[in-house]
C-alpha cells in the first residue's frame, strides 16, 4: 500500500526516456561523405555503410561512438525506443523504420493477440538481454496485464524468445527447445547477438545469426534492448 501504484501508463500515454538514452539513430542524408566514412571506420561493429548512409541496427550496439564525430554531423541517437522490425533488411536503416504493427502477419494477431506465452532461451548472451527481459515482470512494466507471459515449459509456449549469439554449445539445446514448442509457433530474435553475433561477431565458437537456424518472425535490436523496446515490439506485433 505505502509504495502506491507504480505501473507505467505506457502504451496508453507516451513515455519519454532520459535524453542520454541512445535509441533510433537519425541520419543526416546530406552529410559529407568523408564524415560518414570516418564514422564507418570508427564503428566497432562495422554497422555503418558510408556510401549508402545507413546503419544496420542488427549489428549496432548503440555505443554512441559515431555520434561523437563532428558533433553528430552524420548520426545522432534519438530517445525513440521503438526499434522492432519484422524483416532483417528493415533494420538496415537510413533513420526510419516501417511501422511494425502494419507489417506483422494478421494471423499472428488473431492467434496470439489475446494470449501470448513465450519460452525464453538464453543462448550465450551476456545476461544483459535476459535481465532487461526479466524486468518486464516487475510492477513498473507488468507484462502480464497484456496477456503476455514467459513460461517455464516449451510445451506451454507459443514461441521462443532467443537472446545471445548462440554458442556451439547451446545450439542443440536451442533447437530441441524450439522443437518442443507446439505449432504454430513464432521465433523472436532479441538483441544484437542473436541477430548478428553482436559484440562476438567473427568468433568461431558461435553461430552468430539465429535466422540461419530458425525462421525469425520478429527482431528486437539493442545491446541489450531497452525493456520498452521489447514491450513496444511485442505489443505492436501481436496486439
Amino acid at each position, binding site marked *: 500500500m*505505502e*509504495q502506491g501504484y*507504480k505501473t507505467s501508463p505506457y502504451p496508453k500515454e507516451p513515455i519519454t*526516456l*532520459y535524453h*542520454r*538514452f*541512445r535509441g533510433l539513430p537519425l541520419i543526416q542524408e546530406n552529410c559529407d561523405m568523408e564524415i560518414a566514412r570516418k564514422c564507418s571506420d*570508427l*564503428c*566497432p*561493429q562495422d554497422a555503418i555503410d558510408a556510401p549508402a548512409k545507413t546503419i544496420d541496427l542488427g549489428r549496432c*550496439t*548503440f*555505443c*554512441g*561512438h559515431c555520434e*561523437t564525430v563532428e558533433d553528430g554531423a552524420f548520426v545522432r541517437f534519438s530517445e525513440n525506443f521503438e526499434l522492432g522490425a519484422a524483416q532483417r533488411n528493415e533494420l538496415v536503416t537510413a533513420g526510419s523504420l516501417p511501422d511494425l504493427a502494419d507489417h506483422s502477419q494478421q494471423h499472428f494477431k488473431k492467434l496470439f493477440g489475446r494470449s501470448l506465452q513465450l519460452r*525464453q*532461451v*538464453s543462448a*550465450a*548472451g*551476456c*545476461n*544483459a*538481454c*535476459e*535481465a*532487461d*527481459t526479466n*524486468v518486464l*515482470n*516487475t*510492477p*513498473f512494466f507488468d507484462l502480464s496485464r497484456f496477456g503476455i507471459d*514467459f513460461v*517455464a*515449459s516449451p510445451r506451454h509456449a507459443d514461441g521462443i524468445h532467443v537472446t*545471445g*549469439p548462440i*554458442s*556451439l*554449445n*547451446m*545450439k*542443440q*539445446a536451442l533447437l530441441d527447445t524450439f522443437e518442443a514448442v507446439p505449432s504454430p509457433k513464432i521465433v523472436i530474435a532479441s538483441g544484437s*547477438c542473436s541477430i548478428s553475433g*553482436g*559484440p*562476438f561477431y*567473427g*568468433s*568461431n*565458437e*558461435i553461430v552468430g545469426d539465429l535466422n540461419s537456424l530458425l525462421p525469425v518472425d520478429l527482431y528486437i535490436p539493442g*545491446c*541489450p534492448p*531497452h525493456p520498452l523496446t521489447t514491450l513496444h515490439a511485442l505489443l505492436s506485433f501481436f496486439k
Partner: protein
Amino acid sequence: MDNLLEIKNGVAISREAVPEVSYEQFFTTLADFTRNEGFIVQFFAYEEQGGYKLLAVVRNTGLYIIGTTVEKTFTSLTGSVSEKFHMFEREIAEQFGLKPDGHPWLKMVRYHKNYSGAKDVFGNDYQNEIPGNYPYFSVEGESIHEVAVGPVHAGIIEPGHFRFQCAGEEVLHLEIQLGYQHRGIEKMLPSMPQKRLPIIGESIAGDTAVGHNLCLCQGIEALAGLKIDRGAALIRTIALELERIANHIGDLGALSGDVAFNPPAAYFGRIRGEFLNLLQILGGSRFGKGLVRPGGVTHLMGEEQRRLLREKLKEITPEIEHVCDLLFTAHTVQARFEHIGTVTKEMAKDLGLVGYAGRACNIPYDARVTFPSECYAELPANSNHVTNGDVNSRATVRREEIMHSLDLIALLIDKYEMLEEQPKAVVTEDHMLDANSVVVTINEGWRGELSHCILTDSNGSIQRYKIKDPSFHNWTGLAMSLRNQEISDFPLNNKSYNLSYCGFDL
C-alpha cells in the same frame, strides 16, 4: 616468497622482470604461498615460441607474479597442495592440452577444442555439440536417485547443467557443468582491433559490464601510458557502485521471491530498475555500457545529472531501508534463511571464495581495500556483522554493502563538485601498447574479485588476454553449500550466490 616479484594493481611491467623459475621451484613457491593465507588471482598458460609457459599471479596483502616453462605434462598442485588450483589447472588442460599430472578430478571446464591443436586431454569429440555429454560423478545405493536440471532452466536465466545425487530429499552431491555460454572471448580478443575491445569487455558478463570493462580499460591504459583525470575516476567509481547496488537489490528481491514473500520481491524488483535508470542517466545505457573507455569516460556528470542522482538517492534510500527491514525482520524469512547452505570459514578459505560469498564466511577480503583502483583509496571501507556462511549471511552482507555503497556515491558526488579542473570526455582511439609487457588489473566487482591480465609481444600486440570472473572461484562454493541440504533449497542457495554463467564460460 623469494622467487615472487611484487607487482602493483594496474601497473605494467616488462615481461623480462617476471621471475622465470624451474617448474620445481614454481611448484614449491606456490605451495608455500597458498598454504600460508595466500590466494590465486590468475594462473594460466600461454604459447611462446612453440613451447608453453605458465604464469601465476597470487595475493595475500600484496600482489605477486611468477612464471615457468612447462612440458606437456606437469605435476598438479591441486593433487597435493590445495583445492584453490583445481579449476585453474582444468582450464590450462582444456585451453592448451597440457596435463596436470595427479589432478584428482580432471574434467573439462567449458567444452571446446584447445587453442594449440594438441591432443585433447579429456578425450572429447567436439563434433558432438553437447557439453553435458560426460560421465557425471554418481553415488550408488538402494535409495539413491539422480536429478538432472538444465541447460535450459525454468525461467529467464542463463544455461548450465546441474546434476544432483540425492538420498530422498537430501542432496549428497551437486555437480555443476557449465560451458553452454562459451563464446571464445579469450581466444578472439588478441586478434581484435582496439575499437572492439571495450564493446567485448562490456559483454563478458552484462550484469558486470562496468566492472569487467573497467579491468580492460585500466589494462590498456597501463600498457599505453594513459593517465585518466580525477573526474573520470570519480564517475567510474560511481558507475561501479551503482552496478553493485542494482545487482544486490535485484538478488534480495529474488531471495524474497524464493521464500514466497512477495511484497519485497516486487519492491526490490522495482527499486533495482531505479538504479539501472541512474546508470542510464550517467551514460545512456541501463547497464553502463558505452561509458568507460581507455583514457577516461565518454560522458561527464553535468549539474543536471548530479541533481538527478542526488534527488533519486534521497528519495529511494528510506525505501530501501524499509524494504530491507520488512524482509530481514520477518520470522518466516529468518527461518528459511538461517542455517541454510552453510559453508564454513575453513572450507571457504580452502576453496578461495571471494566477494560476498567469502565475506559471508568471515573472510574480509575486499579488493577495494586491499588493491584500491580509481578512487577507492580515499573512501571508507565496509564491514560485515553476520558472517556464519549461510544464506542469511550472504543476504545480510548484500544489505550492508547496499547501504555502504549508497554512502559512497553521495561522497563521490561531493568530491566531483569540488573538482578544480573539469574533466574531458574521451572517445575510443587506437593506442600504442608497450611491447613485451604484462599488466594485471583487479577490481572488486559486485560479485567479488575481477581480474584481467594482458601480455604483449615484441610488437606491442596482445599475445594473451586472460579474464577471471569471481564466479570462477565461487561456483564450487555453491556446490558445497548444497551438501546435505534439501534439494528444495537449491533455488534459495543459488540466488544467495547468483553466480555468472557467461562470466565463467567466457
